[in-house]
């Protein structure tokens, strides 16, 4: 039986819409220094393996792992990239630590979205070059189609989706690192700019810059360190169909499969009542609702109502995205999941300040890689 795995250090920068004063390397360095100080370790001598999550097109550099080691203290060390969300990176570090060959692992993900001149063009390059790209479909247009399908099939109303944005962006008002906090009301959606109806601009998480670094360790190593460990109880990930035309647009089965994998490891049989709070992907408002259903945290008939009635609010029975999520903190591409992970660890440590929940012993964090992917990762945590 493998040792338990703990989160022993976390570090993050502020998430901001533009960061003209720093490069992506400086953002990474900032988060790394904070994480190493938090864990009380020296990266040059006490970290056994490093993982960065990044995609070449987002970075504007091919073979991006070239430019990672220096600012993390990883030069001439065990370091590689995963082209996945930061939570895929966490899952990778968990596997490496469970082999028994490594004692500590570092996972990094970042966003320098403000460097991108043509994010829509880049996103379009992720579509199948033969069958889909010639149709010139914008990612938000595809999301609008999916939102339509999901809402129609599950009886979700426009207001219920809007309530997600209202909740998450207001949650972010008390998250000191969040970059897209706002005090919205449902009325604001009457004047929201239509993008691909029913999707409006207020339904879409807006990009920000920032970096997050997480330090993980095996139980025996964690005991040598001074911090309060948060336990990683489960890690699951899964891919569905990469083709738009051959997937279920209402229910993302790959999320259910990934959750099943994580729940199996964590011994979770009743997810609805097991987790004190959830941090799930909310790249688009409807995605939070869709993901809550797929994760088994709500049923299709009550997910919208729960949100509308405040049951997923910070003071509700089952808080969701207390951090503000991607709508409130900002969309960070491959770092989006890791941003939520960072805030979940803060909650479980009891160090979330004004965001702190009265009861936070168990958490679930989930990430989705955006249009047009069907790729997700799920991590479960316990104090």
């Amino acid at each position, binding site marked *: 039986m493998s040792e338990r795995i703990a989160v022993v250090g976390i570090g993050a920068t502020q998430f901001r819409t533009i960061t003209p004063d720093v490069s992506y390397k400086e953002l990474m360095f900032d988060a790394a220094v904070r994480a190493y100080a938090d864990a009380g370790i020296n990266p040059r001598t006490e970290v056994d393996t490093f993982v960065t999550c990044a995609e*070449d097109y987002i970075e504007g*550099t091919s073979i991006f792992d*070239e430019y990672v080691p220096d600012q993390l203290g990883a030069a001439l060390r065990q*370091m*590689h990239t995963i082209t996945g969300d930061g939570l895929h990176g966490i899952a990778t570090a968990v596997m490496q630590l469970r082999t028994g060959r490594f004692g500590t692992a570092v996972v990094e993900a970042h966003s320098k979205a403000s460097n991108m001149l043509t994010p829509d063009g880049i996103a379009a390059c*992720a579509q199948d070059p033969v069958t889909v790209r010639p149709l010139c479909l914008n990612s938000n247009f595809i999301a609008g189609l999916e939102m339509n399908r999901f809402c129609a099939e599950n009886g979700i109303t426009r207001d219920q989706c809007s309530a997600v944005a209202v909740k998450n962006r207001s949650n972010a008002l008390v998250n000191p690192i969040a970059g897209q906090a706002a005090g919205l009301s449902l009325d604001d959606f009457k004047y929201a700019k239509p993008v691909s109806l029913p999707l409006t601009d207020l339904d879409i998480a807006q990009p920000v810059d920032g970096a997050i670094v997480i330090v993980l360790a095996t139980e025996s190593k964690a005991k040598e360190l001074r911090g309060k460990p948060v336990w990683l109880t489960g890690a699951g990930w899964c891919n569905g169909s990469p083709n738009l035309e051959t997937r279920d647009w209402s229910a993302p089965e790959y999320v259910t499969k990934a959750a099943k994998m994580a729940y199996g*490891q964590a011994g979770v049989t009743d997810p609805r009542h097991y987790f004190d709070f959830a941090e799930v992907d909310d790249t688009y408002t409807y995605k939070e609702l869709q993901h809550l259903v797929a994760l088994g945290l709500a049923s299709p008939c009550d997910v919208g109502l729960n949100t509308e009635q405040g049951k997923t609010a910070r003071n509700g029975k089952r808080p969701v995205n207390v951090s503000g999520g991607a709508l409130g903190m900002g969309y960070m591409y491959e770092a989006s999941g890791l941003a939520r992970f960072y805030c979940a660890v803060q909650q479980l440590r009891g160090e979330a300040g004004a965001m702190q929940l009265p009861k936070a012993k168990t958490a679930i964090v989930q990430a989705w890689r955006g249009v047009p992917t069907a790729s997700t990762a799920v991590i479960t945590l316990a104090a």
Partner: protein
Amino acid sequence: MGNRVAIVGVGMTKFVRRALETGKELSWLASKMALDSCGMTMNQIDSVVMGTAPDTFDGVHMKGEYLSDGAGGFGKPYMRGFVGGGTGVFSVAQGWYHVASGMFDTCLVVCEEKMSTFQPHAQAAFVTIFDHIIERPLKPNLLWIFALEMNRYMTTYGLRKEDIARVAVKNKTNALYHPCAQIAAPVTVEDVLNSEVLAWPVQRLDVSPVSDGAVAVILANESVARRVTDKPVWVEGCGWALDTAYWTNRDLCYPRYVEEAARMAYKMAGVTDPRHQIHVAEPYDPFDYKELHHMEGLMLCGRGEAPQLTADGVTARDGELPVCPSGGLLGVGNPIAAAGLMKIAELFWQLRGEAGKRQIARKAKRGVAQAWGDLMQVGTVVVLGV
């Protein structure tokens, strides 16, 4: 420590200049062959690892996601790891930790590359790997930075071009017996020396081609491996190391990152004297001097000694330490990530005694494969044994 992990099946497409298949199809072909080779089906595969080099080749953003169904990643835990040219060998290390962690019983590792999509020549894609402020404005390409490295290696040890050309001759000739080889040819040292100069001292026959192709291997834990095959090939050690991005600050005459990666893999495998405990080697040879460079990094010989071993025939297929019996990238071809995994496939066949006409003369119980990439920066090493 960790579960024992074995390779139980291998599949490989032909390496060609321009494949008619899409990347998805190439991935599927290699995966299907690997499954068939050990009588397994996708239902028995618990996880999938994809290896493929830069997205610029295909012009597809999030290429790993695009290739996922072709590689068998549909409805399964699927992950793409990435260390540039080192990806092919690294993907086996990645598959190893999937299984050794105990989280999965089996892992299908697929590496695919389709460089022909980039028109007119994939070399131009490489300008985007350089630092966007300091280097990209100089419009560098890989041929000339490796010409710098080759020059440095030759100057440090007082080597002549003939000393290095022997590697190209050996590998292109070895590849004559490889059914998937793209540019096998019975060339001579004179042919290499008379070939077109690309960026001195690199000439046309010193360098591997642009290729399309895919390779897949199946990894399994001990209990599955024993059920599936009588001849499992064990992953005895894995190592990887990534050096600083500032390649201009390194002494290019010695790949220290390869040594670091090798030390990690050897430690895991219990190898203390690589020169005698490794019986067959597949170091990365995109250029002929790189095979020599990497033999030294892998500590299979002392620094600057590899050219003499080649001249003495020690590294020939019937030599004492056969090196690149497959024909390497110089002979079989260089679809970046797939080329690294081709080396693992060759060790699998050699150690099982199934390499046919390519079978090495000596009895081999342990082999090492290595790949290299990024800005002359990453080393990835896997030690296999029976």
